[in-house]
C-alpha cells in the first residue's frame, strides 16, 4: 500500500521521537516508523520478576530543577511532555585501585565541586581557577558565535576568545595539562570520559567541558519513570499533536527520485512517501539501504573514514535487600584498575573501567521496598572482551562476565551482594545489535575522536550528509552521543526540516 505524509521519521529512538513531536507541534502530518514493538530505542526498560531494570540510561546532563531548568528540562517542556525528573547532587564517586590510586566523591554546584575536588587534590586551586575561566570563556565564545549566526569575526575570536580556540582544537588531556593539573588531578577530572566514549587524549576538550559544565551546574538528572517513561511521554505528546507511530514496521529501503532526492521509504511491503524523511537510523545503515548511486561519494568516504563509538556490556542485578542493608552508599561509582583514561579505555579485557549505579539511591521507589537494583556498565571499546564468543557459548560468556564483575565490585566496595541476587540479566553488544541494528552494536554512533570530534563536526555542519529530502538525528548525528544531546539533535533536525518546508504549517 501507499501512504503519504508530510514527514516520515525512521526510528522511534530519542532523536526520532523528539523530532516527530517537534514537527507535529508545528502542524505537520508526521508518521514515525519503528521496527520494534516498543518506542524509545536505548531509552527503554525491561521487567524481570518484581524488578524493572533501566536498560541503558544512567543519568542525564543539563536537566536542572523546576526553578532553574537546564536545556533538557526546557526541551521536554517545549515538547509538551509531562515527564518528571529528580536531581542527584553528588556527581560521582570514583575509585582507582592500587598504589597512587584514589577514592573521591565529587559534588555538583560550582562551589561544592571545587571544595570536593580540593579536599582530595589540595594545591590545585590555581589550575581550577584557570579551568573555571576557560569554561566561562567557552560559553561566552559560543554566545558570540551564535550572535554572529556562526560567522564570527576571526580577529575577535583570536583576541577575545583564544581560550575557546584552544579548547576547541586540542584534546582534553592536553588542555588540562596546559592548565597545570597533574596526572592524578587529570585522571579524576576526566572520569566522565566514558559518557562520550573516547579517552581524554583523543577527546575534544571543548566537548567535554560543555558536558562538565552541565553536570557541575545542575548535577545529574534522573527520570522518575526510568528512561522508558521519557519515551512514552514523548509518544503521548506526539499522538496528542496528531502524529502517529507504526510499530513492527522495519524500513528496508530509502526511495530516491531521479534528482537523488529522498522521497520516501519502503517498509513491510508498503511505501511511505513524504516531503521529507528524518532518519534516527545511523547513516551507515541508511546508505546500506539506498543504493550506491544515490548517495554522494564524499559522504560515503566520510562514513568509511569514521569509526564506530562504544558499545556496552550491562549487568542488571535485582537484589533482595535494600541498599542500606547491603552497605551500598553511592548512586554512581566509577571503578577502575588503571590510572589514566587511555589505559582505562584500552584495557577492556581486564576491567579497565566500569560503572556501578544504584538507582534506588536517587529514586527510592526504583524497585520494591526492601530491595534495590544495581546496574553495572562496562564500556566495550575494542571488542577484545568478546573474543571467542560464538552462538554456542554466548550464554556461558554472559554468566562468566557477570561473575567476574560482581566479584570485583564486591571486593572494591567492600560489600557482599552474592547471596542476594534475586534477578540477573546481561546485555552485550549482541543485545544492542539486536535491538538497534547498529553496526557493531554501537550505542554511541560514531567515535568522537580527533578529526571526527565535536568541533570538527560542528564546523562541517551543512557540508556533510547534506542529502536532499533527508536529515539525520540521534546519537550518531553531528552533536555526538548522550541522551540530552540526542533529544536536542531531534529538535534541531525537525526545525531544519520545518524551515525547509516553509515554516509552521497552519493549513
Amino acid at each position, binding site marked *: 500500500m501507499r501512504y503519504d505524509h508530510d514527514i516520515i521519521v525512521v526510528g522511534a529512538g530519542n532523536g526520532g521521537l523528539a523530532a516527530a513531536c517537534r514537527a507535529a507541534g508545528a502542524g505537520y502530518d508526521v508518521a514515525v516508523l519503528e521496527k520494534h514493538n516498543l518506542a524509545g530505542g536505548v531509552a527503554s526498560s525491561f521487567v524481570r520478576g518484581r524488578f524493572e531494570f533501566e536498560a541503558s540510561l544512567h543519568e542525564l546532563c543539563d536537566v536542572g530543577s523546576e526553578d532553574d531548568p537546564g536545556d533538557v528540562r526546557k526541551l521536554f517542556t517545549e515538547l509538551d511532555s509531562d515527564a518528571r525528573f529528580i536531581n542527584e547532587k553528588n556527581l560521582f564517586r570514583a575509585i582507582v585501585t592500587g598504589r597512587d590510586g584514589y577514592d573521591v566523591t565529587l559534588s555538583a554546584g560550582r562551589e561544592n565541586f571545587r571544595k570536593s575536588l580540593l579536599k582530595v587534590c589540595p594545591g590545585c586551586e590555581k589550575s581550577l581557577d584557570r579551568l573555571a575561566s576557560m569554561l566561562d570563556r567557552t560559553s561566552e565564545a559560543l554566545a558570540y558565535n551564535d550572535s554572529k549566526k556562526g560567522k564570527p569575526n576571526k580577529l575577535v575570536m583570536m583576541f577575545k576568545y583564544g581560550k575557546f580556540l584552544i579548547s576547541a582544537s586540542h584534546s582534553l588531556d592536553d588542555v588540562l595539562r596546559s592548565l597545570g593539573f597533574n596526572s592524578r588531578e587529570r585522571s579524576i577530572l576526566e572520569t566522565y570520559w566514558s559518557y562520550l566514549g573516547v579517552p581524554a587524549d583523543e577527546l575534544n576538550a571543548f566537548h567535554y567541558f560543555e558536558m562538565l559544565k552541565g553536570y557541575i551546574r545542575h548535577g545529574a538528572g534522573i527520570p522518575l519513570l526510568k528512561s522508558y517513561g521519557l519515551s512514552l511521554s514523548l509518544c503521548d505528546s506526539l499522538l496528542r499533536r496528531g502524529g502517529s507511530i507504526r510499530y513492527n514496521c522495519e524500513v528496508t529501503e530509502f526511495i530516491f527520485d531521479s534528482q537523488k532526492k529522498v522521497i520516501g521509504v519502503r517498509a513491510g511491503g508498503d511505501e511511505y512517501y513524504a516531503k521529507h524523511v528524518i532518519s534516527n537510523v545511523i547513516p551507515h545503515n541508511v546508505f546500506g539501504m539506498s543504493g550506491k548511486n544515490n548517495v554522494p561519494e564524499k559522504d560515503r568516504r566520510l562514513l568509511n573514514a569514521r569509526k564506530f563509538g562504544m558499545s556496552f556490556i550491562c549487568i542488571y542485578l535485582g537484589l533482595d535487600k535494600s541498599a542500606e542493608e547491603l552497605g551500598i552508599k553511592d548512586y554512581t561509582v566509577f571503578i577502575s584498575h588503571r590510572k589514566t583514561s587511555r589505559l582505562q579505555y584500552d584495557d577492556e579485557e581486564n576491567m579497565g573501567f566500569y560503572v556501578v549505579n544504584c538507582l534506588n539511591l536517587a529514586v527510592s521507589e526504583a524497585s520494591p521496598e526492601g530491595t534495590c537494583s544495581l546496574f553495572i556498565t562496562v564500556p566495550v571499546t575494542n571488542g577484545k572482551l568478546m573474543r571467542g564468543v560464538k552462538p554456542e557459548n554466548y*550464554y556461558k560468556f554472559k554468566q562468566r562476565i557477570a561473575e567476574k564483575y560482581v566479584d570485583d565490585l564486591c571486593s572494591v566496595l567492600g560489600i557482599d551482594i552474592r547471596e542476594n541476587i534475586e534477578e540477573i540479566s546481561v546485555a552485550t553488544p549482541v543485545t544492542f*545489535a539486536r535491538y538497534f541494528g547498529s553496526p*557493531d552494536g554501537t550505542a554511541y554512533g560514531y567515535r568522537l575522536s580527533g578529526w571526527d570530534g565535536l568541533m570538527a563536526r560542528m564546523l562541517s555542519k551543512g557540508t556533510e550528509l547534506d542529502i536532499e529530502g533527508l536529515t539525520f538525528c540521534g546519537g550518531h548525528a553531528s552533536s555526538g552521543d548522550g541522551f540530552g544531546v540526542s533529544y536536542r539533535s531531534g529538535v534541531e533536525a525537525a526545525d531544519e526540516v520545518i524551515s525547509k518546508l516553509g515554516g509552521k504549517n497552519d493549513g
Partner: protein
Amino acid sequence: MAEDKKRIKLNMGKFLKIIPERLKRIKNSSDDDMKPLYSYKPNALAAAIHPKEQFVIVGNIEKLCSDTLLFTLLPDKEKGTSSLSPFQAGQYISVSVSSGKRTYSRPYSICSSPSEFADKYQIAVKRTDGGVVTGILHEEIKQNDKLTVSDPCGSFTYEPLRDAKTVIGCAGGVGITPFISMIRAVKDGMEDFSLTLLYGCKKPQDALFRDLLDKINDPRIKIVYVFEEGAEDNCEKGIINAELIKKYAPADKYSLFVCGPHNMYTHIEKEAEKLGIRRKYLREDARGQMIHPEKEPDFYPAENGDYAVTVISSSAKTELRCKSGETLLSAMERAGVTAPSRCRSGECGFCHSRLVSGVCYTPARADGRRAADKVYGYVHPCCAFPRSDIVIEIKA
C-alpha cells in the same frame, strides 16, 4: 611529579587546521559501499542467536502417552534457517500454526538438549479440552509440514550467580518438559548443578519420558515420582508438598524450580512459604494463559458478562465482543485478528498494545508491564480482562 606539574603550552592556530585535517581524512578514505551488517561480529551473533523467526520442518512425531505428542523440529534450510538458535535449558519457543485463514501461536518449552540446538528442538504437546492449537497440532500437523517458530525466550533457566547449587524441581504433568532439557543439559556438561526432580502425576501411566528418566545414571540427578493414585515401588504417594520437599532437600540452601498446571504454582508457593524459602530461591516458569482470573487475590468482578472491543491495527479496524473472564488476546484470536503474542503469561511484552480507551483488569501476579506503561495506558492483552468497552491499538 616535577615533569607532571609542568604546564604545556598550546597553540590556538591549531583551530585553523581542523577542517583541512578532516577533509584530508575523508579524501583518503575508501569509496566502497557500506559493508553488510552481518559482517560485524555482534550483528552476526545477534542474527544467529535472536533471529526474528525460525523456519522449521516437522520431523518425527512420537506418542509419549495417550494425550501427549513429542514433536521434533528440524531447521528448514531451504527457507533460510541453516541452523537453529542456541537456547538455555528451560526456555521456550512460540510456535505459529495456521488453520484456514487464521494464524495462532503458543509457547512450548524445549525439551531437547541445548547441546543439540543447531540441529533440532523437541517440544511435547498435551492435547487439552477445547484447546485450538493443541487440536491443530494433534490432528492436522504431520511429518514434513513446515512451521514458523520464534527465537528461544524465557527466563526459567539456571543462573549460577543467582541460584543455589542444588535445585529441587517440582514438575506437574507436561510441566516436565523444561526439566527434561535441564537434565540433558547437566548430563551433556552444558549446566553445572544438582537436580532432584519431584515429578507429580495423577497415575503412573501419565508420567512422560519414563524411558529417559528411569535410565538416568548420574550422581547429580535424582528423580522422585509422586503419584496421586496407584503406587509403585520407590515412589511417593500423594502430591508434592512442604514435607516432601523437605525430605529430599539438602540441609543447606537450595532453589525450588516449578513448572506445571496453574493451580500447582499457587500450591507450591504456599508450601515454599511454610519452608521459609526466600523469594530468590523460588523460580516459576511462565504460567501460560490465565484461565481462572477469579482465583486471583486482587480479582474484581465485571459489571457486564461481556464488552464491545474495537481493535485498531495498521490495516484494519475490527469490532468484537470479549467476555469479562476472557483475555483480550483470546477474544481477538477468536474473532480472527492476528495480534502479536508469545509467552501468553504477561511477562514477555510481545503483545504490548495501547489502550486507547476503556478499563482492563490485569491481575497483579501476571502484570509484567513497566511502571510507565501503566501511567501512559499500555496493556499486555494476553493477561488483560475487560472491565468496560475497550478501544485498543495493537502493533500489527
